[in-house]
């Protein structure tokens, strides 16, 4: 058994930090209280928000899920993945094809999408995870492009115009068709993603990821099978992306290959890096920044992506660990 206090933790923990604001923040009881308050606020947002606000917030939860998925690959295992949109595309297209062309029930497509995206993770990760990190980045980038081009060229994926008429899911005879329904769906997904990430981070596998990230050779010397551990990270990250893709397809009812361009992968990566790699609250902040920044600076027009990029560069230069970095133990 591992003593919980010895667990290398990158989350908010550490009973050894009393006094002041941090002392108030750290105890288990207060943390639960804060989390509950935040969850209640998130649930109550639809009461005070208009449809535009809801749309934006739904988008936030959606990116929270994607960023947490990529965080497993980049933050926990330290592998740079520049083709994450590919897994998101695999999930979305699995749901899209099965519902619109074969009439399969939406909920049944989720397990299929999980399997398909896990397989995609295995196929691309299996042979390439032995490579050095910069080669891996390029391979994943190439893979992302391959998936997008395949989606654009095949007939079953609807070609360049994509798939339309994906059926909205029903639950107990109740059809999800309003933005508020999807708000709650994505909120639940985001909370689930947080929970799974948290549990993974503090599991045996999570610690193995940390060792591999910090020193691959030392980890291997300690008996960690580094390729297997990295592959786990890759596949689990892929599943996160795949599931997010399923719900994305259901929400949009139409998907096209241009949604899954390289910029999408970069955007998700920015969410992870901006907030603080490897730390759940940091990643959530990153996802918020990612969605809200372009909305707030809508007035800048075509300059806003430039401003965003410059901010990104400055953060990398002055705070390479992100806005709210993981604590080094």
């Amino acid at each position, binding site marked *: 058994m591992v003593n919980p206090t010895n667990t290398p933790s990158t989350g908010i923990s550490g009973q050894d930090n009393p006094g002041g604001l941090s002392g108030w923040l750290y105890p288990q009881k207060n943390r639960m209280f804060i989390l509950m308050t935040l969850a209640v606020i998130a649930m109550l947002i639809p009461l005070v928000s208009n449809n535009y606000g809801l749309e934006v917030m739904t988008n936030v939860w959606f990116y929270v899920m994607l960023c947490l998925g990529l965080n497993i690959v*980049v933050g926990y295992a*330290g592998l*740079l993945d*520049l083709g994450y949109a590919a897994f998101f595309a695999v999930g979305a297209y699995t749901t899209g094809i099965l519902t619109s062309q074969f009439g399969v029930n939406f909920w049944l497509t989720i397990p299929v999408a999980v399997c398909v995206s896990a397989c995609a993770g295995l196929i691309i990760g299996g*042979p*390439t995870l032995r*490579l050095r*990190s*910069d*080669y891996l*980045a*390029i*391979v994943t*980038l*190439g*893979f992302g*492009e*391959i998936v997008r*081009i*395949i989606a*654009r*060229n095949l007939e079953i994926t609807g070609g360049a115009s994509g798939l339309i008429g994906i059926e909205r899911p029903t639950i107990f005879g109740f059809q999800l068709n309003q933005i508020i329904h999807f708000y709650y769906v994505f909120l639940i997904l985001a909370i689930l993603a947080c929970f799974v990430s948290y549990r993974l981070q503090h599991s045996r596998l999570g610690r193995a990821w940390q060792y591999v990230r910090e020193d691959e*050779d030392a980890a291997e010397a300690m008996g960690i099978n580094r390729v297997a551990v990295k592959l786990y990270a890759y596949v689990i990250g892929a599943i996160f992306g795949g599931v997010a893709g399923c719900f994305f397809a259901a929400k949009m009812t139409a998907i096209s290959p241009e949604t899954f361009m*390289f910029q999408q992968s*970069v955007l998700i*990566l920015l969410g992870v*890096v901006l907030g603080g*790699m490897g730390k759940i609250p940091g990643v959530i902040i990153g996802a918020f920044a990612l969605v809200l920044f372009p909305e707030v600076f809508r007035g800048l027009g*075509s*300059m806003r*992506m*430039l401003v*965003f*990029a*410059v901010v*990104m*560069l400055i953060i*990398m*230069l002055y705070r*390479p660990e992100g806005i709210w970095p993981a604590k080094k133990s």
Partner: protein
Amino acid sequence: MSIQDILLQQLANGLILGSFYALVALGYTMVYGIIKLLNFAHGDLYMLGSFVGFIILSFLSTYIGDGWAGILCSMVLSMIAVGLLGVLIQRIAYVPMLSAPRLSILITALAVSMVLYNGVMALTDGQYLAFPTDLSYEGFDLGNVFITNTQIILVGASFILMIVLYLFVHKTLYGKAMRAIAIDQDACRLMGINVNKIIALTFFIGTSLAAAAGIMAGTYYGSIHFFMGFVIGLKAFTAAVIGGIGSIPGAMLGGLLLGLLESFGTQIPFIGTEWKDVFSFSILILLLVFKPTGILGKTEIERM
């Protein structure tokens, strides 16, 4: 068209595509060889080269015309301007990150790339710009194959650039210093080589070659776009890996080989032009998996 004609036509297409790839790949390989950095912004510097060339050529065309003289002048000026920008980027973004973890410097490079292409996108509103040249369509027939003078001049120019680079790296003292730094930076410092200066010089040369390729591509295709650097950056990296990353002759060989493979690949049944990119990225992935050292690369022994 007979089969020979098709092959000849593809040979011509492949050579010109390959020489663009080779020029961009050289920058990747030089920077990688000397500081082990995968410069994601390199493709964008190629794009920037063509835009700077566009601006200079628009000014110059009233004085010296938009023929080859104008293109040559704007190419030289754009190579210098973009080369200096490359050095600036290296100073601002990469020097402070050299001791940081590899992931951080890769993401910084990615951020630089985003700044560059978003900047150009904001300035041009994402429009395609017509490259302001007026070149004749003269050329000569080889059977059913028509090869324009433009194609020959561009291939010739890129070969001249590559030969000059080769001579520079292998025959001058600066080139010797570059090769030495790639082997052991600390030893070079002890030998009195100004390492930072040589690294900056490497960035300058690599970037200006990409800018040259950018202008040539603008001349050849006739239009430029803020996102033109992305795919070629990826392809040029593939080319650098095919040849063995870090090796200068390897990048030239890899670029030409990839260009030829791509243009012949479009002639294979079931691989039409729409699958061209899948074809070359698959080559990249297979190559990295089975022979990551490439054709001319050396196996690196990792010391702990």
